[in-house]
């Protein structure tokens, strides 16, 4: 295992390409921690946004006019405003209004920290898109299928969970795929409120080691790989869920 750090050390001495991350254990740990934070942010926001999206789509096809209007307003607002301003609005605007406790040393300890606000804000942003995507998937499910479920004694909620949503997800997977890739890319915004994710960690490293170019390349490669893995997973899922005979 010593070969890799040695090779990068030699690369630095011979060419001046300074990939500190690969031979300096301190920088390596920071990078890995950043990567972990990016993964935590992505996975939690993807899951939460899917749940909110599905719930929103259920409400939108529901009977209550007020709830429908509410979901509609949520979708319209979150789709048409910049995610960064949303993040600032939540973190600075609402975060300072919430009650805060004091730690033993008298520091202000807010109810939700920056990581949690980033998760909330990014989830809501992606969920607004997911609602629309799920809704279009649900519209593709034929009315007769829902009637058949009703005839079998399913309640509206049960029919949605067991029949409509599974079919809808299969129809809208390509669009969902796009949105989740977008969400993964949007997690970099958490940098703005000092969440130590990959961009933040590498920015710290390049300000200390003066190796902007090398760390930029690493950053691009990192996100390239992350997006690649996500797309690969989604395609596998798409294939596994393929409905025989249904062609897009």
């Amino acid at each position: 295992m010593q070969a890799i750090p040695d090779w990068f050390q030699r690369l630095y001495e011979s060419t001046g390409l300074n990939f500190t991350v690969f031979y300096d254990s301190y920088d390596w740990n920071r990078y890995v921690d950043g990567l972990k934070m990016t993964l935590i942010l992505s996975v939690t926001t993807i899951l939460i946004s899917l749940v909110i999206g599905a719930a929103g789509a259920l409400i939108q096809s529901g009977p209550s006019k007020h709830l429908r209007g509410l979901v509609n307003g949520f979708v319209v607002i979150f789709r048409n405003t910049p995610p960064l301003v949303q993040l600032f609005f939540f973190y600075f605007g609402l975060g300072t209004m919430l009650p805060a406790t004091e730690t033993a040393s008298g520091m202000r300890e807010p109810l939700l920290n920056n990581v949690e606000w980033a998760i909330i804000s990014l989830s809501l942003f992606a969920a607004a898109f997911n609602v629309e995507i799920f809704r279009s998937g649900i519209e593709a499910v034929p009315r007769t299928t829902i009637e058949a479920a009703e005839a079998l004694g399913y309640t509206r909620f049960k029919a949605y969970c067991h029949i409509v949503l599974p079919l809808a997800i299969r129809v809208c997977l390509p669009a969902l795929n796009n949105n989740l890739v977008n969400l993964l890319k949007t997690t970099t915004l958490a940098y703005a409120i000092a969440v130590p994710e990959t961009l933040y960690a590498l920015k710290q490293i390049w300000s200390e080691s003066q190796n902007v170019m090398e760390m930029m390349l690493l950053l691009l490669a990192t996100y390239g790989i992350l997006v690649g893995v996500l797309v690969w997973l989604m395609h596998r899922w798409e294939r596994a869920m393929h409905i025989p005979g249904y062609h897009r």
Partner: protein
Amino acid sequence: MTRPLDSGDRLPVLLPLRLHGSERHHRLGAGSGVLLCVGLVLLVSIASAQAGRVTPSVLQVIAKWAPLLLTGFAFNILISALAMLLGTILGLGLGLGLLSDWPPVRQVSWALTQIFRNAPWLVLLFFVMFLVPFQITMFGLRIPFPDWIKATVGFALPVMANVAEVVRGAVRSLPSTQWEAAEALAFTRRQTMWRIILPQCVKRMLPPWMNIYSLVTMSTVLASIVGVSEMLTLTAQVHAAEGGRPELFAPLYGFALLCFFLYCYPINLWTTHLERRFQTG
């Protein structure tokens, strides 16, 4: 025994995905619009109630600084328009590269498109901000690159890749008989592309192109992270100038949200409208 199918009846089959299929959704009705305004006023009044009497109320603060903030917003629009212009020109070239007959050009264009589409906007922005020099000396002539120009280039890169995909998709969506007919009329490949294929694609490309524009506009606030003094930077400065009171955060950022919403929502509505019209027409 079998019931004849009514002519207007939809077949009970799983339909293909139509993102903007239905008419009734995602339009702000009068009722929800009023609700939205009431909510906003309520939020502001709560904040101003907390502010007390000694300090000017939140609405006064916003009214006082609105001209400055709106200038910042206009700067955002300028950056977005320039980035879109540059990105569209580059993207058209890259899109034609994707459709090239010559494999090396196609592969290089494909790689460029993938890199710039899959990298986060913020990362690309950092890339351009840090790696492009602040000025270039050419033939003894110094060409300065202020930070906002660099930011514009940084936004133009992802736009380029997205426009390239749009161009490719639009050209691919044309029936191949168009190509064959042009060939039969002895058009060269270049003539076919420029005089037959692309003019027909403009209509198909317009809605996705407007979607990209809306995305760019919303991304221009990222420039505040790298120090361009656009609306969000100005908002933070205004907040500091007003004494950094924490209850001012929500109304000030709310004002920024409102500006972007009022600009992007009509674009979004118009895009949906065009999509629907082109779909049926």
